[in-house]
C-alpha cells in the first residue's frame, strides 16, 4: 500500500514535469522555427527582424534548459570533484 501511494505521488510529478519540459520545450523550439520563417513566402525573401528576435528568444530558452539538463547530469561530479554545488 505504501508502495502504491509512493508511486502515485511520484507519478503525477513525473507526468507534469515531463509534459512541461518534454512537450513544452520542443513546442517552443517549433515556435522559434516558425517565427524565423514567418512572413517569408520564398527562400529569396528577406528575414523579418521581429521574427528573428522572436526566434532568438525561443532558442535561447531552449538552450538554457538544455544547459540545465547537462548541469543536472554532472551535478554529483562537479560537487564531488571541484566542490561546486550547482543545485
Amino acid at each position: 500500500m505504501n508502495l502504491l501511494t509512493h508511486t502515485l505521488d511520484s507519478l503525477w510529478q513525473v507526468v507534469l514535469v515531463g509534459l512541461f519540459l518534454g512537450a513544452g520545450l520542443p513546442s517552443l523550439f517549433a515556435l522559434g522555427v516558425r517565427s524565423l520563417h514567418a512572413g517569408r513566402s520564398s527562400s529569396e525573401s528577406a528575414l523579418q527582424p521581429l521574427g528573428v528576435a522572436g526566434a532568438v528568444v525561443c532558442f535561447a530558452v531552449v538552450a538554457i534548459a538544455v544547459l540545465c539538463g547537462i548541469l543536472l547530469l554532472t551535478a554529483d561530479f562537479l560537487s564531488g570533484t571541484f566542490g561546486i554545488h550547482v543545485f
Partner: protein
Amino acid sequence: MTAEFVVLLVVVVTALAFDFTNGFHDTGNAMATSIATGALKPKAAVALSAVLNLIGAFLSVEVAATVAKGVVDLGTVGGEDLLLIVFAGLVGGILWNIATWLFGLPSSSSHALFGGLVGAALASIGVNGVVWDGVLGKVLLPALLAPVIAALVATVGTWSMRRLTRDISEERRDRGFRLGQIGTASLLSLAHGTNDAQKTMGVIFLALVAHGSITADTEMPFWVKFACAVAIALGTYLGGWRIIRTLGKGLVEIAPTQGLAAESSSAAIILTSSHFGLPLSTTHVATGSILGTGLGTKGAEVRWGVAGRMVVAWLITLPSAALVGALCWALAHMIGGLGGVLFVFTLLCGLSLFMWLRSRKEPVDASNVTAEWDGSLVPAATTPEPVVQEGRP
C-alpha cells in the same frame, strides 16, 4: 596466480562484457530516430553517441560497492559465494541482452541484470536473498508506467509541434528539427554514459571488495572507471543496428518532427524521473516516446504487432534472465570452485558466439538499417556486399 584471483579476473571480464552489451543494446534509445530521419549518417551517429557515452562514464560518480541495491539482498554472503552470485547474474544479463538483440528487440539492460541477479540470489540464498518489494517497486511498476508516460508526453509534443509549424514549408521545418534532434540525441547519450557505466563500476568494485583486494571505503580505482567507460563506448560504437532498425523504422514512420518530439520527451523524462523517486528505464521511455509520436500524428500507422512483441519481451526479461542466472549458479556450484566458474564462462562464450554467427546470416548494419520496413527486421533486398552509403536517401 591463485584460484581466487582467476575467479576475480573472470568476474571482472564478465562485468565488462555486460557493460559492452549494455552499450550496443542502448545505442538505439538515443540515436534511432536521428538515423531514421537522416539527421545523422548511421556511422556518424554511433560515433557521436560513443564519444558522449565515454565522457558521460567519466562524469559518473559511483561511491558505494553495491549492485542492484534494493532488488537483491546480498549482505548475508561474502567472499567467493558473493563472487559466484554476481558472476551468474552477469551471465544471465548478457545472454538475455544478446538474445533480444538478435531478434531486434529493445529491452532494458538493467532489468536483465536485475533478473540474472534475482535468479542467482534465489538459487543460492533462497527467497530471503530477494527484496520482493524492490522487485515490484523498482522493476515491475516502472516497466508498466514508463511507456505510458513517455507515449503521453510525446503524443502531446508531436501534436503541438505539428500545429505550430503547419504553415511553414516542410523543407525549412525539417532542417530546423533535424538540428534539434542532434542536440537532444547528444544529451541522451551523455545521460546514458553517466547512468549506465556506473552500474558496472559498482559490480566490479563489489567483486574487488569480496575478493579482499580493496576495502569498501577505498576510492573507486581509476582503472575500473577507465575500463567501464571504454567498454560501454566500444559497445555503443558497434551499434546495435538490429535494435536501431526496430526503433527507427519498425514502430512508426519517423519524420524530423516526430524524431525531435520523441527525443525531447525521452530526455526530459529520463533526466528528471529519478529525482522524483520513480526510476524509469531508458529503453522503456525511448520506446514509449517513439510510439507516442505515431499517436500524435494524424493518419500515421502505428505497428502494434511490433509494439506487442516488445511488450512481451519486457514482461519476460526479468524471469528469463533470472532463470539463466539461477541455472548458471547451479552449474558453477555443482562443479565447484574455479572449474565451475570457468565452465560457465566457456558456456557464455560459446552461446554468445553462436548467436553472433546466427546474426551474420541475416545481417543488419549501417548500410541497410534505414531500408523501408517491409514487415521484417532484416530487409528483403540485402546485397551480400555492403552498399556504399552515398546512395542512401
